């Protein structure tokens, strides 16, 4: 991890003064941060800090109360989730939301198909599509399970399928919502390896993660959220060594 380069990378996404309240509760409170190309930014913070809400605001699943978000220099304030995906911003869900009745293979295949009307593909288009699916199947270790329905997979396999759906696409930014939670040590080693490999190939990642070992192991940059506010955003060591943030994170707040 060469954290010192993190500030010099091109800014892919610019988040400025974003607010979102549910009833009287400010879920996201005046958050401003940049997501930089080719690095892993980790969102940490206690439950209810507003991490998933921030993802929902970026992809347009929820609408902001105020503030602005730019993607590759263009404002995406009114974007809808399907438009965000087509613009190269993809996300995973904490509860996975796999296409349960579909096969593993079809889960991945449909994730790279974003045509709304029925189309006929040429042979070369079909081959290209097939290659992407096979790539993701192999990376996620699901090739032998490709014909099985998603709902019949084991827990760790379901998590890898959730990753494979993203891996097969050409998206530039991945928003991963606790992709490693509940994985056994072997599986999460494999997960980290996949993630590092993909980032090396040019993908930008923003990940929500609770396990500090993983956070330390992968982060180029850490953003610390608590009660909707961004308390810190910087190099991993400086954020994690801040005694005040540690106290909040470990629930020692008074």
């Amino acid at each position, binding site marked *: 991890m060469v954290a010192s380069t993190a500030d010099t990378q091109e800014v892919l996404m610019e988040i400025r003064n974003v607010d979102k309240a549910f009833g009287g509760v400010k879920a996201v409170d005046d958050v401003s941060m940049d997501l930089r190309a080719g690095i892993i930014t980790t969102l940490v913070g206690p439950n209810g800090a507003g991490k998933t809400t921030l993802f929902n605001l970026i*992809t347009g*699943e929820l609408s902001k109360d105020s503030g602005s978000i730019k993607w590759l220099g263009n404002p995406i304030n009114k974007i*809808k*989730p*399907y438009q*965000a*995906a*087509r613009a190269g911003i*993809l*996300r995973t*869900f904490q509860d996975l*939301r*796999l*296409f*349960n*009745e*579909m096969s593993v293979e*079809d*889960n991945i*295949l*449909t*994730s790279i*198909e*974003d*045509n*709304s*009307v*029925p*189309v006929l*593909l040429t042979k070369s288009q079909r081959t290209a599509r097939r290659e992407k699916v096979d790539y993701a199947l192999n990376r996620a270790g699901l090739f032998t399970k490709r*014909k*099985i*329905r998603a*709902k*019949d997979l084991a827990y760790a396999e379901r998590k890898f399928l959730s990753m494979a*759906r993203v891996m097969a*696409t050409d998206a530039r930014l991945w928003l991963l919502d606790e992709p490693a939670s509940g994985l056994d040590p072997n599986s999460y080693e494999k997960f980290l390896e996949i993630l590092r490999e993909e980032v090396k190939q040019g993908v930008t990642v923003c990940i929500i993660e609770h396990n500090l070992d993983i956070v330390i192991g992968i982060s180029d940059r850490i953003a610390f959220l608590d009660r909707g506010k961004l308390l810190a955003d910087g190099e991993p060591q400086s954020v994690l060594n801040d005694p005040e943030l540690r106290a909040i994170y470990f629930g020692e707040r008074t």
Partner: protein
Amino acid sequence: MEAYLLNLVILISIYSILGVTLNFIMGYAGIYSLAHAVFFGVGAYAGTFMAMHVNASIFVTLPVAMAAGAILSLILALPALRVRGEYFVAASLGLQVLAVTIFSEWKSVTGGIGGLIGIPPLDVAGFEVFKPSQFIFVTVGALIIILFIINRLVHSSFGRSLRAIRDSESAAAAFGKNVPLIKTISVVISSALTAVAGVLYASYLSFINVESFKLDTSVLIMAMVIIGGTGTQAGPIVGAALLLLLPSLISYLDFLPQTEIGSIQQIIYGLGMALLMIYRPGGIVGRKKQSETGKE
């Protein structure tokens, strides 16, 4: 006896078209419509209107009926598919009720409550088809063509999008699927193909009235799909055949009191459906039980 069987097969194939087209949106897109009989009726009335006043050729009646079904379905789909599933069921029920009123009142087109009589036979490229022994080829042929079209759609990227939307709307959207648009297109395709059944039905009976296109029919079609197996290819056809054969089979049982045959039928229907859903929720053709699947 032969005429009786021909008649049954023709009706089964027409209702199979209804089942297959409903199953397309219900089984693959998760859109539950209680207005399927409306599009059946619109096809029947539009086709009949063309046949009686313009031209009886199927190259006129079918396209006009399909277009009428498609346009009407857009009116339902555009507002109703932007909201969640339950609302679509309610909106479709509303359309069904509204449509029955229009079918009964718009006398110049539908003939009002009395309906329309003397509907001309199908004109297939100048050849008039009215004998059941010939008509059976038209209805079975239409069923096969519609099955083929739907089969191709279901196995295309469009079909995968539909199933993805059915399984998780938010995840489908997160992977670039324009959910309202895709749902709308599926409803339009389904309704246009449903209208074909209406045209065939009207010219086969040469008489139609609103009784055939009421909520009962919508519920019957849905029952055919569920009993046969939602989301399966053969399910709707099996369901249509079973539900249309059952009344005849029951009437052959001599020991039943013939005066009560109607209520006995209802009891058998109701009981059968309840038991089937408890012991075989996937329908007759559907998967047996969750625990028995997924093994290789």
